[in-house]
């Protein structure tokens, strides 16, 4: 095959390929549009500050940011909490830490005219915190015993199954909650002080635990 003929054939093939590609792009444009995010929602969790104002032993905050990809809502949450407790016998415990959660929700109200959301989803959470405790024993047969122990820069991961609701209140103001079933906490209990409470996760007393967040959200639509 001569060189000009080879170039001609190559050009024809590229043209045909381009035509096919253009036709495919036209077909997928419709598909593609529904997979493009149309909004960003950012929210502030309001139970934590209410709780912090009503009890002495808790302070905390949490924010959330989410967007939509068709009926899926990638979500990022971050926050922090510190707790302190004192038992009757004089034992005390306090912790302080930050956490984040990354995951996605699936919306089951796809035909709702207000675009309200009822979702099921999952999260992976991670927390870094410090804690200290004074443990007091005043009982026979060992007599009085006081020990002070602490852990610094402890980290832990966990998983969550979530169920949530987002409801439009005004044009840009939404309210919503996320209820969480938390499990597979990965904390290694190999320290002299065993962890009692993980910021973002909660109590380590059992294999699983529950959580609840109530958000005030600002909805920012940027595409139709």
């Amino acid at each position, binding site marked *: 095959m001569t060189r000009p003929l080879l170039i001609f054939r190559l050009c024809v093939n590229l043209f045909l390929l381009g035509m096919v590609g253009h036709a495919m792009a036209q077909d997928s444009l419709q598909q593609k549009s529904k997979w493009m995010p149309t909004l960003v929602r950012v929210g502030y969790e309001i139970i934590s500050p209410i709780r912090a104002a009503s009890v002495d032993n808790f302070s905390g905050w949490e924010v959330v940011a989410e967007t939509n990809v068709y009926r899926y809502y990638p979500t990022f949450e971050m926050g922090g909490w510190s707790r302190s*407790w*004192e*038992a*009757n*016998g004089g*034992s*005390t*415990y306090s912790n302080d830490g930050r956490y984040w959660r990354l995951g996605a929700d699936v919306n*089951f*109200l796809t035909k709702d005219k207000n675009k*309200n959301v*009822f979702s099921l989803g999952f999260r992976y959470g991670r927390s870094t915190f410090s804690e200290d*405790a004074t*443990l*007091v*024993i005043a009982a026979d*047969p*060992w*007599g009085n*015993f006081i*020990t002070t*122990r602490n852990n610094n820069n402890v980290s832990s991961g966990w998983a969550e199954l979530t*169920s949530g*609701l987002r*409801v439009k209140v005004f044009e840009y103001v939404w309210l919503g*909650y996320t*209820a969480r*079933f938390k499990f597979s906490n990965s904390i290694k*209990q190999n*320290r*002299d*002080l*065993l*962890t*009692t409470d993980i910021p973002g996760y909660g*109590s380590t*007393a*059992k294999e699983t*635990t*529950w959580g*609840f967040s109530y958000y005030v959200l600002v909805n920012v639509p940027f595409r139709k």
Partner: protein
Amino acid sequence: MTRVKKAIYLLFLLLAVACLDEPDCFNLTNDTVTIVFRKMFDGRVDTVTFARVDVTGTQLTVFDEDTVVLTNLSVLVDYTATSSLIKVKTFERITDIELGYRVQGQFVSESCGPKFLLSELKVLNSNADSIAIANATPGAGGNVNVYRCPRTNYLLLAFRELEDGELRRDTLTLAETTADFNYTKLYADSGALSFIRLPLNLASNATTHTFEFEDGETKFITFNYSRADKMILPSCGVQTVIDDIRIVNSNFSRSELIIDTRLKRDSIYDPPIINFQVVR
């Protein structure tokens, strides 16, 4: 908005379940160590007569000169330290068991207070014949196995009675049993008995036992035997073993070696087998 209502109901259900998420305050600290006494020969549990058990460094006494027969012993160890010395006094000896362990503390809740988790149990020191950790986490199952070497000088005598031409188990009430040498009583030798474990003198080739019955009657048996030094188990070293035991004198109406084709009944076994029977 029916789905929204369902979601709200689901939320309240989740919150209701979440209320059950409080820690339990019962038995928080796993400070109970169970010591199981076993025979080294076959690894089976041994029945031990305890006279006193102390956890030193405390005032904790499990038994105080009050005879208790058990196969295992549960004692509290000191979770304010990382080791405890347990002194087990039986009729035979005083066994020291010094255990080391890791103690982790935790604040459980405002209502429960603290707890301590013991783990990584190990034997720091002991004068037992042999000792091993079976479960390094106190609080569940047998934690420490204490093995004893075989006892090579206890024969087993059975009491029988002849009824309708057949030998049946008999129960005799003994006031006292004595031997012609000094020995430590490890087994019951008075009261209502169908079997009795009798020690043989390892310093002699003959031992006589005298049985004083509750009705005042007195019987005796004299055993002759041969002795030899032998290593049965390496960790027990060389022990004196007894063989070829015979009854050379007795005022029981009938006293005889049990004839058995499988086991050599004129030798000592531990765990014991019936060597002899006496018939009233």
